[in-house]
């Protein structure tokens, strides 16, 4: 009782980034990376629930074999809008633009990113794109699939293709600017003594992600320009009837969109490295291997786009090469999984909410990654291509992987962001709901796909109903699992326990400053004389400090 009273006494007389200035204008014109991170958080949360709405409607339609809730045209629009919103407006910016923006400069002991104005500009560009995407939703949607395959998208579809591709094009520039800002920041703004191999692994993974952002996104941009030109002028850059080559479109599109998978999952791996170390109270096993595995994934990620086209008519020889290269991606990915697991060994593991999400990530990512090998195998891919097997596979990577890690990261850094603790019991419950709901939703889809249920249809044969009902039931649990944190996070802003500087007892510069941090992050520039994840027993660490 008494503690509760003490907790509510505002101790926030200290100046921090939240009370440094007030008013809408101080937020909309802010150059503080922490506030910009919050602006991103608000925007992508809205987009997450819009994309989630479309997923919910699809799962409801698929409850019964007949198409009874919506027409096939509406269904086409719903799965397209779900994909576009979730990928371009939620997953791509999720961890980099929210957690990366907020935490990365603090992690490296900097006052801000290298280009604070550019950072704000990137948010405005994102918002223009997101408003364009929302306009499309209201104006009647788009039905091409998130891949905008030609010539359907340019010659036949009578939905809002240009508005959608233009929005995706614009949003791309926000991620280019974020990537550019991170690269320069990591190169130039590290605190004295913070060498490359003392960096937290989250920083390494953000660096690898940024490289992909600046190299892959412009290719998507030019591809979408050509698509818009083709549709607007009715010419045939990618239309075989007018001399164009639809495979060229697919090559260019996947040259971005395959690396984009790693834009989503590399930051997630970075978050998981932080969480596993913090809640095992151990230095990450094989630090350098994990760090270089991020770069290896970024590099290999550029060489495997053809596996999206194995049955699209590319030559058998290039298909074989793309298949082998795709297998190679498994090596650095497995290095990470084994090293996280090895970190747990003999660690003092505690099961707080962020750790539950991290452990969930490791399991689900492993399943997602292994089924990726099935799809990279030429023979098996012919069988499961364009079925629910692939839908299940990439949801294991993107939802079971990226979204789980995003939620884990939000919980882990929430005390730093808000200065308050979220309710732990509710946190663990939601992590459990998400894990159970997710598996119930998507595991049956592996079986459905293997049995031959094609993706992107609003009706199916009655034999598949039992598995589809399971999937829809899982989706309902998943929806609750996502809604609960949204509620208690808002609740915790006012009623949460005061967190203190370092509620987890974690290593890392972000935990040495106050919660929430002051506008300039540190009162004095920190000088780093220790490695990342310094979790030795206090007496040992004390000896080092004296020396």
């Amino acid at each position, binding site marked *: 009782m008494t503690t509760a009273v003490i907790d509510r006494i505002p101790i926030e007389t200290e100046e921090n980034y939240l009370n440094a200035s007030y008013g809408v204008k101080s937020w909309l014109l802010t150059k503080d990376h922490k506030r910009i991170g919050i602006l991103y958080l608000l925007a992508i949360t809205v987009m997450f629930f819009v994309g989630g709405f479309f997923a919910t409607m699809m799962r409801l339609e698929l409850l019964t074999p007949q198409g009874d809730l919506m027409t096939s045209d509406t269904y086409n629009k719903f799965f397209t809008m779900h994909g576009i919103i979730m990928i371009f407006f939620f997953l791509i910016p999720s961890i980099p633009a929210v957690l990366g923006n907020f935490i990365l400069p603090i992690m490296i002991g900097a006052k801000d990113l290298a280009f604070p104005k550019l950072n704000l500009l990137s948010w405005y560009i994102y918002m223009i794109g997101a408003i364009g995407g929302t306009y499309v939703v209201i104006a009647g949607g788009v039905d091409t699939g998130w891949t905008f395959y030609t010539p359907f998208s340019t010659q036949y579809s009578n939905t809002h293709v240009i508005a959608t591709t233009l929005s995706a094009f614009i949003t791309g520039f926000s991620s*280019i600017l974020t990537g550019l800002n991170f690269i*320069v920041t990591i190169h130039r*703004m590290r605190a004295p003594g913070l060498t490359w191999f003392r960096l937290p692994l989250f920083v390494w993974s953000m660096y690898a992600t940024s490289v992909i952002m600046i*190299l*892959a996104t412009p290719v998507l941009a030019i591809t979408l*320009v050509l698509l818009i*030109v083709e549709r607007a*002028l009715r*010419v045939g850059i990618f239309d075989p009837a007018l001399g164009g080559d639809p495979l060229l479109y697919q090559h*260019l599109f996947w040259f971005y969109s395959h690396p984009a998978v790693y834009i989503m999952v590399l930051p997630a791996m970075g978050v998981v490295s932080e969480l596993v170390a913090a809640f095992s109270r151990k230095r990450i096993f094989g630090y350098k291997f994990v760090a270089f595995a991020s770069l290896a994934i970024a590099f290999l990620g550029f060489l495997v786009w053809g596996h999206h086209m194995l049955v699209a008519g590319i030559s058998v020889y290039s298909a074989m090469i793309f298949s082998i290269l795709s297998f190679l991606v498994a090596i650095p990915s497995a290095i990470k999984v084994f090293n996280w697991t090895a970190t747990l060994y003999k660690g003092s593991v505690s099961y707080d909410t962020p750790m539950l999400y991290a452990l969930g990530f490791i399991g689900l990512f492993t399943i997602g990654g292994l089924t990726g090998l099935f799809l990279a195998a030429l023979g098996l891919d012919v069988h499961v291509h364009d079925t629910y097997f692939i839908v299940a596979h990439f949801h294991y990577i993107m939802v079971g992987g990226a979204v789980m890690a995003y939620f884990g990261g939000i919980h882990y850094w929430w005390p730093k962001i808000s200065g308050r603790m979220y309710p732990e019991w509710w946190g663990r419950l939601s992590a459990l709901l998400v894990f159970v709901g997710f598996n119930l939703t998507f595991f049956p889809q592996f079986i459905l796909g293997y049995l031959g249920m094609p993706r992107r249809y609003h009706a199916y044969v009655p034999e598949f109903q039992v598995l589809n009902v399971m999937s829809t039931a899982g989706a309902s649990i998943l929806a609750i699992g996502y809604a609960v944190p949204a509620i208690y996070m808002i609740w915790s802003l006012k009623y949460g326990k005061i967190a203190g500087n370092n509620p987890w007892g974690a290593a890392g510069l972000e935990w040495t400053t106050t919660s929430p941090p002051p506008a300039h992050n540190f009162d004095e520039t920190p000088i780093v004389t220790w490695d990342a994840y310094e979790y030795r027993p206090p007496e040992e660490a004390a000896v080092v400090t004296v020396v």
Partner: protein
Amino acid sequence: MGQQYEASTLGMWVFLTTEILFFGGIFLAYTLYRNQYFEAFKEAAHHQDLWLGTINTAVLICSSLTMAMAVYFSQLGKRKALVTSLVLTLILGVVFVGIKGYEYYEHIHEGLFPGSLFHFQSPMADQIQLFFVFYFSMTGLHALHMIIGFGILIWLILRARKGDFSPEYYGPVEVTGLYWHFVDIVWIFLFPLLYLIH
């Protein structure tokens, strides 16, 4: 200040890497069709005005020279010479885009603009249209980069007149120079691809 200068130069180099990939995509597509429809692209290139293209190339190279001079004078802190070089760069840039605009006008007049305005009697009309799709897209994107450059130049001129730059602080001039030279180099590749190869 030193850190800021290094950061902005590195930032521009990273941005130019992005730009290379951006133009790279369309160069790739061009190369593919150039090989596939060799005869048609050869035929289409005959409808280019080689003289105007050559003059424009010279104009643009001169603008790169004046831009390089601007960076040099900013390092020396010669304000008047800096402003003059920047203004010359801007004028040459505008001349370039003006000539380009005239070429566009002629092409549209001849019915070479792709889409509903395209009127070309040939069995290879579709393929020739494809050449002009690339011609207008590539030079159009290039011109757009020039026009963005004009905005930056005007901003630099206004700042230089106020005496904002000195031998200790000339980062914005140098970074703009990098950008301007890049846009120049893109044209150096476009010119042979679209005008010279027959």
